[in-house]
């Protein structure tokens, strides 16, 4: 090899790569994109490791996407002085996470379980593999994975293009307008502005999404499509009995260690709400859930202060409403459920 050839090539490669990365970053920022975080198993495991904080200092949330959108974490934390550990996951059934926490003898904290009937009660969960991946990742996490997460956090906090969900090559290729193969469902194509994620794992709609009804209608169309699959509640009575038994055993385990569990039904609206009411009658599912587990619950429709939200795409609250919802939720928890927080909440 000619001496110096590879050195010059390497130098050129470094310069070109830096230039390309900088150009891409500037372009994305120029288009109005902000820093968002990858809501991956490493991030989930990071927060899963925090559930051992004293129960009067933190509250753990599990569930599906609704509680990720509807609970405004900065609002909760500023009012209550209580740390939110957000472990909910989009499109997932929270039951495996509930069982995971119940089986963890060191978890003795306060747990809020978000109930989205179509995911909580049905056999359908599009994210089963991701659920196993996240729980296993936490259980088998290595020191190098912990360190890489911290380095990644530093880089992600500075660079827009490191948003894997939006700007990784595969994400961008997935957006190519290729014809679909008959019989192959490529997965829902949510608009980029629908669910961006903060480092605290809160999801929210961007202002672009809130203002754009075309984007909202795209998501509604996805719900309609998914609804066809999700409309299958756990069918047999025996299966439902054993399902409730699993939940009861799990909640009993947590309560026996001094922890507490509360179920939360967050708002939905429009055809989505009608669909849920029809598929999962409240008496048969929600009421029975509370009766079997003897856990407290908050069903949004029972409280006037949180019963009239309109979700832009039928299923999740917009950021401004999430702030209001969170403030009202705290009030309900204090007045109706007797919860106390370390910080006085006079400012509500």
């Amino acid at each position, binding site marked *: *090899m*000619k*001496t*110096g*050839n*590879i*050195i*010059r*090539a*390497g*130098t*050129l*490669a*470094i*310069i*070109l*790569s830096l230039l*390309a*990365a900088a150009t891409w970053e500037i372009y994305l920022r120029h288009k109005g994109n902000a820093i968002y975080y990858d809501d*991956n198993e*490493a991030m989930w495991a990071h927060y899963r490791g925090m559930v051992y904080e004293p129960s009067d200092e933190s509250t753990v949330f599990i569930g599906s996407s609704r509680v990720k959108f509807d609970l405004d974490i900065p609002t909760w934390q500023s009012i209550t002085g209580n740390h939110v550990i957000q472990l909910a996951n989009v499109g997932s059934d929270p039951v495996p996470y509930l069982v995971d926490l119940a089986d963890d003898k060191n978890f003795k904290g306060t747990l809020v379980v978000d109930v989205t009937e179509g995911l909580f009660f049905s056999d359908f969960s599009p994210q089963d593999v991701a659920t196993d991946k996240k729980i296993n990742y936490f259980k088998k996490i*290595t*020191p*190098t*994975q912990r*360190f*890489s997460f911290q*380095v*990644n956090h530093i*880089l992600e906090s500075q660079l827009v*293009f*490191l948003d*894997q969900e939006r*700007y*990784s*090559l*595969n994400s*961008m*290729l*997935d957006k*190519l307008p*290729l*014809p*679909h*193969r*008959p*019989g*192959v469902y*490529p997965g829902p194509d949510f608009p980029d502005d629908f669910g961006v994620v903060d480092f605290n794992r809160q999801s929210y709609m961007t202002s672009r999404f809130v203002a754009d009804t075309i984007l909202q209608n795209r998501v509604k169309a996805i719900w309609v499509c998914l609804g066809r699959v999700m409309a299958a509640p756990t069918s047999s009575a025996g299966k439902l009995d054993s399902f409730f038994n699993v939940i009861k055993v799990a909640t009993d385990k947590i309560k026996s260690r001094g922890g507490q569990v509360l179920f939360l039904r967050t708002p939905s609206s429009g055809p989505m709400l009608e669909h849920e009411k029809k598929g999962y009658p409240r008496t048969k599912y929600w009421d029975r859930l509370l009766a079997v587990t003897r856990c407290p619950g908050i069903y949004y429709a029972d409280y006037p202060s949180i019963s009239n939200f309109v979700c832009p795409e039928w299923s999740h609250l917009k950021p401004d409403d999430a702030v209001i919802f969170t403030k009202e939720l705290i009030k309900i928890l204090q007045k109706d459920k007797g919860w106390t927080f370390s910080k006085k909440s006079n400012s509500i």
Partner: protein
Amino acid sequence: MLFNSYTFIVFFIIILILHNLPFSWRTKKINLLIASYIFYAAWNPPFILLLWLSTVVDFFVGRALYTQENKHKKKLLLVISLIGNLGMLCFFKYGGFLLENFTFLVNAIGFNFHPAKPNIILPAGISFYTFTTLCYTIDMYKKKSKPVESMLNFSLFVTFFPHLVAGPIVRPPQLVPQFESPRKANTQQLFQGLFLLTLGLFMKVFLADGMLSGPANNSFGATTALQSIDAWMGVLAFSGQIFFDFAGYSLCAIGAALCLGFVLPNNFLYPYAAVGFTDFWRRWHITLSSWLRDYLYIPLGGNRAGKYRTYFNLMVTMLLGGLWHGAKWTFVAWGALHGIYLCVEKLFRDMRKSSAERTLISSPESKVIRASFVPEINHPKNLKNFILALGTFFLVNITWVFFRSTDFTSAWRMLHSMFINNPKNTAVLTNLEIYKVGIIIPLLLITHWMMRNTQALSVAGKTPWWLLGIVWSVMIILILLSQNASSAFIYFQF
């Protein structure tokens, strides 16, 4: 620690700085040893004890084997080393498998035996470092090389982080002498090492994980029969994935070592351009195939004990080679298929043996070389050989079905889907996934064919610097865009 992780980047920068500071050579070696233990412990700290145990036992047993003149005592020492190394491997890697099969057998003959399933965690790279230490003690027994005098050098030979977890499997004469005198990469070597590191990461992060793992996982994860195109694309995707994953790891290892001034043996030589299976095993996982040749096939007799014994030796070698990859019968089936391919190829070769070949094998020394299942490479240049290479690739793909499938039911279902198309069967791959495989695999085959008699660094050396710089930067950019920083290498599980 994974090469494709931020932790490794930070770790490697620190090591490079430390290695280039004006410390004594002994201090630098101690730095490298500590770094190697950190590299390993970053995965699962307690298993470092196994590594220490293996190192200490083999250092002292190896020395005793070399100096011991009493034949019985010498054999006893060898047995101790073999039991120590293979026993550890058997317990951690094959414990569950052996118990499962024992349970099946005793139940089949009427006993009601249902033991609890053991929960054994496989230490990363145990198959690799066990083979590294085993070859040392066997060499000492045979007095093939001199014992390593310094415990520090021996520990570093076993533990040197680039090769520790997934090879290349190094022999003492390849690495130990490099620890005896001060080494530091010059600027040229540093950039060559960085080029290989980039190429390896490009193969792993962009091609294996980013482009091919999706289609492979979707096809092999299906629980029903597939349409033929889905089955074929899945298998082809896995063929590409496993090559890019493992060859990528090997390049990273070789590149990382080169950045520090050390040379590791090559592990892949464009295997999908192989004409026949002897050629394939000369190009695929070279350090394992040569290990199996030298420490299993030839000790079994190679081809020196007659035609039928040769076939038997080939089959035993490949069956054990298959089992080395994992404690599952599907891996054994993979090895068996390769064994059969090699036997059939040998049968044809023997039938067509030319007078020129008869002249070649007349000396006893070359007879041993020819006895191996990895003979010297031919240099085919014509269309016939290209077609033969495609035929070899086709047959290799059949073997990958067993390698990748979780059980025989899935493997048979996949083979059935590949060869009998039923439009009513399930389709799982998107058009995009089919395009990815359809573009990458032909490019892979063309590249292998064109590069079959050369190596990446020599091609890089002949390329104009500006063109190499552009290609290099494209690889870096694609790695950055892939953003798959956490996926483990497939061979870690072996």
